[in-house]
């Protein structure tokens, strides 16, 4: 009866001891087994493992690639210009024992120390370059040299630096403003250039049109005068041919025609001598005889 009543407790106790003496390691995890605070094993494959309850202690750390970003910070370039730079470090724990000893397994602390190491490298790389070089350079190339030393230092923390990437390289606010000014001026320059080109083209077109008009009219004038001249010549010939037959009569005929045309208007006032041919018979009706 007693034994039967204790049976469930016995089973529970066994299960508890069993669970205390086993632990699992995930694909994503690294583990350290301690014996009374001393590291005795760090190499664990993922899967089920055993330990002695109370004597062995197990701690787990990430096996994955981790990211640590550094917020924007001012870096000096070769020409002593300030650049805001932020970068991120991809890192991974490779030697979990060393990692534990160096950082007490505190991921934040580890990341912080890693950033210190990498930042020095980044700073020195930026100090070697001018702004265009820093901006233009391949980010990878920018960091390769620096990565070598950072890698070595990081290994003492049990950490492998997988990659360091620069994200932003930006000018501080005042410099940005002057960049904007420059860009604006550049646009303004383009704008005025375009407008001037437009005026140029327009003036060319107008001038061309005016020239064409002048030429056309002048040529037309030339042709017209030629035709007029030909007409005048022809007319003169006709007149001459006719009038040559009796020049004396022509002179008379043409004269009276001219008198007719030029005199005898209502507004004219003629002051006449009574002795003229016309008035021959006015006072002496028999003068002709």
């Amino acid at each position, binding site marked *: 009866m007693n034994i039967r009543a204790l*049976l469930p407790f016995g089973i529970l106790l066994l299960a508890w001891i069993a669970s205390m003496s086993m632990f699992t390691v995930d694909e994503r995890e690294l583990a350290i087994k301690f014996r009374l605070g001393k590291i005795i094993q760090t190499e664990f*494959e993922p899967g089920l493992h055993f330990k002695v309850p109370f004597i062995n202690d197990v701690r787990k750390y990430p096996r994955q690639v981790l990211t640590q970003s550094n917020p924007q910070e001012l870096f000096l370039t070769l020409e002593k210009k300030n650049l805001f730079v932020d970068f991120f470090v991809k890192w991974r724990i490779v030697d979990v024992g060393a990692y534990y000893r160096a950082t007490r397994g505190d991921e934040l602390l580890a990341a912080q120390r890693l950033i210190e190491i990498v930042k020095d490298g980044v700073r020195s790389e930026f100090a070697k370059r001018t702004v265009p070089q820093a901006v233009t350079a391949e980010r990878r190339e920018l960091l390769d040299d620096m990565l070598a030393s950072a890698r070595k230092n990081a290994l003492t923390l049990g950490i492998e630096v997988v990659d360091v990437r620069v994200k932003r390289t930006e000018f501080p606010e005042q410099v940005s403003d002057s960049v904007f000014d420059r*860009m604006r001026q550049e646009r303004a320059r383009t704008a005025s250039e*375009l407008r001037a080109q437009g005026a140029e083209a327009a003036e060319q077109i107008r001038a061309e049109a005016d020239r064409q008009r002048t030429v056309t009219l002048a040529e037309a004038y030339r042709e017209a005068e*030629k035709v007029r001249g030909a007409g005048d010549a022809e007319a003169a010939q006709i007149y001459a041919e006719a009038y040559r037959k009796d020049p004396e009569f022509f002179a008379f005929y043409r004269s009276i025609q001219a008198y007719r*045309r030029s005199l005898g208007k209502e*507004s004219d006032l003629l002051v006449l*001598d009574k002795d003229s041919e016309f008035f021959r018979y006015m006072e002496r009706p028999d003068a002709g005889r």
Partner: protein
Amino acid sequence: MAWNESGNGKNPWDRGRNDGPPDLDKIVRDWQQRLSTFFRGGRGGQRPAGPAGNPINAPLLGLVAIVVGVIWLATGFYRVDAAERGVVTRFGMYQTSTEPGLRWHLPWPIERVERVNINEVVPFKLQTRMLTADENIVVVDLVVQYRRADPVQYLFNVRDPEATLQDISESAIREVIGKNKLDFVLLEGRTEIAVQTEKLIQQTLDEYQTGMFVTKVNLQDANFPSQVEAAVQDAIKAREDKERVSFEAQAYANDVIPRARGEAVRRQQDSEGYRARVVADAQGEASRFTQLLAQYQKAPEVTRRRLYLEAMEDIYANSSKVLVDTAKGSNLIYLPVDKILEQNQNRRPAAGPNQPVQAPAASAAAEASTVTRDREDRRTREAR
């Protein structure tokens, strides 16, 4: 570590029942096989064994144990969607990847399954300001689309792969933009930049073994920062202005040149007309003269006098006259010419301004002095 932790909250027993019986046979065989391999491995402590030798409680306890055992085993059922793959780990160690369908794994705490959607294309947007190679600032809108192509790598290798992709993308686009000049970025370079960025992102993703695959990088927009916008707009307007001014000039040219051509034709035609008229006039007058001459030659004296008198008659008939007798008179005669002209003027108010005329002293030689000061007269002479 519950059975539903990796699932979507559905009860796996329900799923087991809902699916038809034909699959169940295979599954049962499957887990039997698994169980046997598992127990051959020597870890048999998990089996909920009923205490067999109890005379009173044995049947009841046995039944309870069997029911509990069956329920426990049933928690191992899970379903993998068509777009998904299941990743099974046994005590944390990667075991297998499973295809879509109804599956079973050893229940907790032995095996776990995590499902990853490998077909879904996930987009994310990125908008940042960055420097170009010629130290200009440009604002870029980037859309990166990716897929979790390798579920095992995706799950295990990198912590927070999405954030990693974001970091990588930002770094990559900056690197590519930083190598190109502003005009290239804004105008012709878009596709090329997208292609380069995609390549760079993929390369880095592979380096980290994230198991992610970038399907497309789209440079949606590359623009000037808002601080420069006004100047940019003005430049665009200037381009329009340039066109407009040219068009205006063209319009002017199109107006002027045809008019000039028209004018040229008019001059031509005028001159032709003039020529025709002058010649016709000449012919007419010549003909008239010739005919008259023929008659004149028959009776010259009479004809001559007749012509003269007729002409004088016409002239004198229409105009004002003053007869002066030079033979008798004094040398100086006063003629109120202006008065006379004024009179004439009053009769014809439309005539030009009158001018006072001091009549010249009629000399003995004078036959007929004419005073013709009227403009009208000049005009008629011009017109012939």
